[in-house]
């Protein structure tokens, strides 16, 4: 498959396994980012977050922005 087709298939099929909803993602986002910044097993402590970020581009952007902003503020 081409990279384009692989990305397309991935976007259509989404992540495997359980994932948070958008509302749960927003609710947990600040905690998740601080766990990431402290290197404290964020994916283990907030199960389903990583899968949701892979499947939801908008929440993924929100996550990237919060991580970048809080990192810059410290």
């Amino acid at each position, binding site marked *: 498959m081409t990279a384009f087709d692989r990305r397309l298939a991935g976007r259509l099929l989404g992540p495997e396994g359980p994932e948070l909803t958008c509302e749960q993602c927003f609710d947990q986002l600040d905690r998740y980012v*601080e766990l990431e910044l402290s290197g404290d097993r964020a994916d283990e402590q907030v199960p389903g977050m990583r899968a949701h970020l892979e499947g939801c581009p908008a929440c993924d952007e929100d996550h990237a922005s919060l991580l970048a902003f809080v990192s810059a503020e410290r």
Partner: protein
Amino acid sequence: MLVTMSSVHLLDPESQAWLDRLDPSSAERDAAVAELHALLLKAARFEVSRRRGSIGAAEGEDLAQQSADDALVAVLRRLRDFRGDSRFTTWAYKFALLEAGVKVRRRAWQGREVQLEPESWALIPRGGATPHEELETAELLAALEEAMRRELTPHQRRVLVAVAIQDVPIDVLAERLDTTRGALYKTIHAARRKLRAALAAREMS
């Protein structure tokens, strides 16, 4: 002083000070609200500058100001939801970043048509596989397209095509369909489960 916080977390002193100062009974409330707005505006400006694309500087600043205002209202309304899972400022920043991100995406798509009736054309564009890869690519994409036509409801198909193929931001689609990001994502999630099941039945997942 707010006393309704979850007892699970002991707040860090800085977060506790924010809650104390933002309490309606606090003599420092007005000053705290102004400080909070300034922090939210900084976050909103950060987000707008990251994503504004072709939006001009003046309009970008206007979007940042609107985002900070809306985020302030949301933060003050949901103050009692803050559980101390993070620093108060990290919790507050996410509201400003969300507001700014949504506003920038919607502004970028203002005036652009979203094609929501893709029933008459090929659902999945072809990416031009090399001859060596062609068979595998063609089989998977054909199976996906067939599953999309056979297994998905018209609403699931429209939403998945718009977001996953046409790259329409989910917030933009939510605005056009008068719904929410969360509701649309649930639709996408259900559609994806159907597609995975259909491919699994064909031993292609």
